[in-house]
């Protein structure tokens, strides 16, 4: 009977403590971005952009993929275009900045300058989607190679948060492809130093358990000897 009473108490006990099961609110957040070239075709480069979110509770560090999208860059064409779209809906609702870029290119053509670097604002694409970053700029270098032929490449990524410039990260192409590069943005939220208080239990608890097993083992042995 007492066992059933205990079972009842156990079941009620497990359903009550909402507080102990739910993870606590994140205390600190950190985002990091990585780009990798996934494929390259003549005149086109496909980049995979991953944004990871890392947050800390008082006990755990959790990293997860926050946002992933493909970036297609059409290069060596008369109208360089950058497309950014989601992995799950490749053509639905992709954002093109082609019109904006065309304006810039028209100006370039008319200016009669054969080489010019310009900055392309992709903030609309990334706004709200990139966590606390409200503006992410890709610095795009556009080179006029021949008449109406442009070469386009991303040279750096600029990160803004609340309209405040945070960091500029170089973005170097390597052997015709964009190099996969981890862009650790530690400026956004400093990584907490040292172990979390809760981490020590990963070692303390198993240690306590093993010690308990050993105590039982030696006690049994001594009892056997006495007998």
């Amino acid at each position, binding site marked *: 009977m*007492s*066992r059933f009473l*205990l*079972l009842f108490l*156990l*079941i009620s*006990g*497990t*359903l009550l*403590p*909402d*507080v*102990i*099961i*739910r*993870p606590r609110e994140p205390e600190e957040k950190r985002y990091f971005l990585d780009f990798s070239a996934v494929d390259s075709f003549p005149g086109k480069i496909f980049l995979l952009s991953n944004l990871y979110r890392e947050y800390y509770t008082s*006990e*755990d*560090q*959790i*990293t*997860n*993929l926050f946002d992933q999208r493909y970036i297609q860059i059409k290069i060596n064409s008369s109208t360089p275009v950058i497309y950014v779209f989601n992995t799950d809906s490749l053509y639905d609702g992709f954002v093109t900045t082609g019109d904006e870029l065309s304006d810039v290119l028209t100006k370039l053509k008319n200016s009669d300058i054969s080489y010019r670097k310009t900055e392309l604002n992709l903030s609309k694409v990334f706004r709200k989607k990139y966590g606390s970053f409200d503006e992410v700029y890709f610095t795009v270098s556009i080179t006029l190679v021949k008449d109406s032929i442009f070469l386009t490449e991303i040279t750096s990524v600029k990160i803004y948060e609340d309209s405040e410039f945070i960091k500029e990260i170089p973005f170097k192409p390597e052997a015709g492809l964009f190099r996969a590069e981890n862009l650790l943005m530690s400026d956004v939220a400093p990584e907490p130093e040292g172990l979390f208080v*809760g*981490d020590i*239990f*990963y*070692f303390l*608890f*198993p240690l*306590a*358990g*093993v010690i*308990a*097993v050993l105590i*039982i*083992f030696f006690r049994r042995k001594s009892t056997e000897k006495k007998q």
Partner: protein
Amino acid sequence: MNIGTLLLTILLEFAVYLFAVKRPILQSVGFVIIVNLITQPLVQMLFYEFYYSTYYETIGFFPFFFFIELLVIIAEMFLLWFLLKTDNKTALKISLLANIFSAGAGLLIYEVL
């Protein structure tokens, strides 16, 4: 470390030990605590170190969860075999029951909350 999960697992598995382990209640409490003090932190560490990483997209939740549970069942079987001084079959039965119950109930509670 998530102490809540540890406590919850101890409580849930104790419910199984109550009926499956033919020992005084206090001894069962001791055993369930010892067993889970050893296995739970290691399980949590595996989850946080590997699951909440880039493997998230490739492995998926359930295959990883079942793999970890399998390891736990085997580890707890050996611990119970020693603690209860019983045969392998009984130890495996208790370990299997306790872990199926705690994992199932844990998932259910997590879903409900």
